[in-house]
């Protein structure tokens, strides 16, 4: 009777130890979690991170678009603040003062007329086309390329008349002119002035493309300059005496 009881106990013990062995964490139990973790990691790296990157790119793009929209709204408001009829009138007037082409005859006529009014006699007069580059320090931009008609002029007369002539030719010419290398020489009782005079014009650009995202500045912000240019235009359009 004792032997079967003992055997039973031994079996129970074996069963327990087997059970305990089975409940222990083994390497094969970790394979599936490790594989799943790896898959998740791969998904994170190859799906989530690109998706997040893309989403953040969209956010950046959205910000840019919003900024462009605001810029366009402002541009539209600025454009709408300009009267189109007034703009066309002003453009015609300004173009007459600084034309797309400047004829030498037109350019020199008013200067010569001023010299005649000041009783100066002409010594030398000629003109030719030039390209002029002007760098504006205040606007911090590239040099502006303009075209001009340039020529040496020489007049002779009394000192007072010569000085009046020098003082007035900025205003007497309806065109935009600028003197360079002014030389004043006394000869006997008379004075002779020699200078290189440039009249400017703005050549027409071909294939003009409107860049709506370029900063827009309405020309009406320069009312003082517009007034001067309009005055010159009036002078130009006035009948020749």
């Amino acid at each position, binding site marked *: 009777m004792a032997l079967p009881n003992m055997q039973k106990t031994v079996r129970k013990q074996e069963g327990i130890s087997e059970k305990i062995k089975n409940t222990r964490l083994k390497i094969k139990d970790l394979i599936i979690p490790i594989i799943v973790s790896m898959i998740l990691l791969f998904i994170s790296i190859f799906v989530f991170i690109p998706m997040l990157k893309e989403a953040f790119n969209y956010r950046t793009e959205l910000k840019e678009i919003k900024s462009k929209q605001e810029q366009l709204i402002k541009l539209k408001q600025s454009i709408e603040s300009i009267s189109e009829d007034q703009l066309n009138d002003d453009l015609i007037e300004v173009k007459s003062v600084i034309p797309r082409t400047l004829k030498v005859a037109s350019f020199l006529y008013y200067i010569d007329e001023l010299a005649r009014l000041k009783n100066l006699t002409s010594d030398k007069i000629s003109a030719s086309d030039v390209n002029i580059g002007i760098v504006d320090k205040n606007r911090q931009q590239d040099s502006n390329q303009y075209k001009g008609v340039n020529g040496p002029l020489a007049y002779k007369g009394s000192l007072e008349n010569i000085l009046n002539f020098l003082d007035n030719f900025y205003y007497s010419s309806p065109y935009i002119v600028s003197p360079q290398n002014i030389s004043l020489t006394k000869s006997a009782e008379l004075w002779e002035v020699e200078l290189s005079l440039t009249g400017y014009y703005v050549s027409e650009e071909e294939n003009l493309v409107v860049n*709506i995202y370029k900063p827009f500045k309405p020309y009406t912000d320069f009312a003082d300059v517009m007034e001067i240019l309009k005055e010159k235009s009036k002078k130009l359009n006035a009948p020749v005496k």
Partner: protein
Amino acid sequence: MNKVIEENKKGKEVKSVVKEETPNLDEVFLADNDESINLVPILSKSEIVQEKKKVKLNIGSILSIIIFLTITIIIVLFSTISKIQVQKAQGELSKQEVEVKQLSSVILSNEEILRRIYLYQDISSNQYSARKIFEYFTQIASNLGDIELDQFDFQSVKSVSFEGKCPSLDDLAKFWYLLSEDELVSRVSLEQFNKLDSVVKFEFKITMKEGNFSTNLDEKKE
């Protein structure tokens, strides 16, 4: 009787052996009353703890999956919403662009006028009054007496050179001194001088301080 006593003794010995082999209380059976053979062994305390751990592990896995799914949904939603917002904004922007491009003639005309305004400003900012410069230096010369200026070269708003003549080197030195001490003059250079009999001919090159002889075109608008 003796047999019964022996059997009892053997039973006690076996029990004592079993007790000795038992490692600790954790592996003692919870119910070990019946005499039948238990093919499915009953759980010990340690087994129950391990089973509980497994359940916890499973809940942890479920929670992890839920968190993972939540993150997935959030990321997908974030990306999708962002994309939709961008597409919508692009559509609106295109409409605005079309509207503004219809006004391109105004923009072009404005640019044409601006080019001319900038040209005017460029030109006028470099203008100077030759008359003012002439009169200023002639005045200094006339204050000394017999100094006569007979040729001027106006190079820029800051630079002028002039030639003249005076009776003596003494006058020339005084004139030079006055020029160099003048508040509107920043630099004086006596380029050359030449004494012939009773006349001294000279040439000065003057660098002036900026802004004193520039022409304000607006104030002279007549």
